């Protein structure tokens, strides 16, 4: 009788074990996406960006300008890129971080869900000294790719901002480009 019960329950046990293994595997592969080889850091730089409201937890690469004049983008789609010719996040002025939008090889890009961010959401950035700076989303705007971007990359209110950019709108098959740029404006949290 005992043997009979065990035999009947075994599919359930196997299924549960399978589910556990799958979840472990899923969590492992998700974690692996975030692994980046160690880089030798010469100065304090932003390292980690988090937007908990949309599940973004990305490493920060340092990017500059392409020969075409556009801000460069991160090498890995799961990472984000800090514009290294601007200010550091937390300094007075507008720091800018961009990230890819979309999917490739069944893998989503860092800012694939950036359009879900709402005003008031929290964005945190940790630098290479493990100092965490918090920003609060203050505005959300869409631009044409060729619009003047000065309002995104500069500010003159004496405050500290971190602006996030990714693509949006529909895919232009001819130019192989999305038709809009989504910008999330944030202000540094002021602690009382």
């Amino acid at each position, binding site marked *: 009788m005992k043997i009979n019960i065990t035999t009947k329950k075994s599919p359930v046990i196997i299924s549960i074990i399978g589910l556990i293994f799958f979840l472990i595997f899923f969590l492992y592969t998700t974690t692996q996406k975030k692994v980046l*080889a160690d880089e030798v850091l010469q100065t304090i730089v932003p390292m980690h960006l988090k937007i908990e409201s949309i599940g973004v937890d990305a490493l920060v690469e340092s990017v500059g300008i392409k020969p*075409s004049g*556009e801000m460069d983008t991160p090498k890995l789609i799961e990472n984000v890129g800090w514009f290294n010719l601007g200010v550091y996040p937390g300094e007075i002025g507008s720091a800018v971080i961009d990230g890819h939008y979309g999917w490739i090889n069944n893998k989503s890009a860092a800012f694939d869900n950036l359009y879900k961010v709402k005003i008031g959401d929290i964005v945190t950035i940790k630098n290479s000294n493990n100092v965490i700076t918090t920003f609060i989303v203050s505005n959300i705007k869409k631009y044409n*790719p060729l619009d003047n971007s000065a309002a995104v*990359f500069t500010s003159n209110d*004496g405050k500290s901002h971190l602006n996030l950019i*990714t693509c949006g709108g529909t895919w232009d098959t001819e130019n192989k480009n999305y038709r809009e740029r989504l910008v999330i404006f944030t202000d540094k949290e002021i602690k009382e």
Partner: protein
Amino acid sequence: MKKINNKIIIAGISLFIVISIIGAIKVFAATTPFFGVTSSYTILSSTYTNTVPGTTVTGDIGFTTPPAVNPAGIHPNYGSGAPYSTAGTDQGNLLTSLNSQPCTFTFPDTAIDLATDTSHGTIGVYSPGVYCTQATRAASIGTAGITLSGAGTYIFRVNGALTTVMNSVVTLSGASACDVFWTPTEAATLGANSTFKGNNIDASGITLGTNVNWVGRALSFGGTVTTAVDDVLTLPTSCTLPPPPPNVDMGGIYSMPWVTPRIDVTKVATPVSLPIGGGSVVYDYVISNPGSIPLSNVTLVDDKCSNITLLSGDINSNSKLEITESWKYSCAMNLSQTTTNIAIASGTADFTTVTDTANATVVVAVPVITVIPTPTVLIVSTTTAVVPLFPDAGLDPDPNFFPWNFLALLSVIFVSVLNLTKNKTTKPF
């Protein structure tokens, strides 16, 4: 007797057909083109980006915008000094020659993983030839890697982006890195810890992950080459490089790629960035003829700079752009804001007009006034800010996307629920 005659005729026809087929195959076999001075460059770019120590490059490195951190290794030519611009011209000729060779195999109309594709033959193994993806189709090299088997020339004409995944390996079995060519039309990205072989000609930019081992050349004149920590790039050694193509040789194996009129223009702005308020910029253009026929009615126009002057190049003063000539032009103008302008070169030969374009962007800094209030004084400081154009961060929608993770999760849950339900209903009293 009549039967014997027929047999002889049939045998003769068969022999003729076999010889014709073999001859045809020989004519269209992939060939390694003339490299010119490009052969000494391991990296050729307009912007070379390397932000961390630990990269090693053996061979020349060409760029106009230097890296933040110089790579280790020996590179006799470093920067934009001669023969940098000639190498750029030669890179264009090299690509033209590669593109003129007909495809020996065209992949199905989908993004291709070269490591798993079976449409071309044995999975993961490639013999010499010209392999082409369909229009706008990318190619990747998956974890299983690929083997290039046999001596000869390999041309992978990717009409999209080229990507290698982390830890992937390109293995040579009888092939030489000297004779392997990758010509993606979009950016190339090599995954971390990957091993890559061959010459990648890609003006859209080439980016390496960390710890990439690459024997070959990263040729992106006009584009950006980005290396990372622990990358090792080595120029192929013991290459038997082919001679320059004959001028006009209708009977030679090179004749097919070189009968078409062609024109090539490159454009370099000096400087590429200006301080607040802008300033003067000089654009230098070089027009060359990578085809086989001299071009007449050669013109060069720039959509923003109107005072273009021909400096030199028409060696025999016949007003025709010979295939051995490079015509140099210059144009100066003042810029007050970030500007991208396009140059269009055109020429005519054999009743055909050919054109080529080149663009350049000069970034002009904008002033940022930062107001810092203090209890007694107001300090106003002015700094320089660089304002680029918006980034292009969108990924080409993946036609092969399928959420396997979620499907697998749903399957497990479904089986679990099914078993639970089954056990409940069959529980013995």
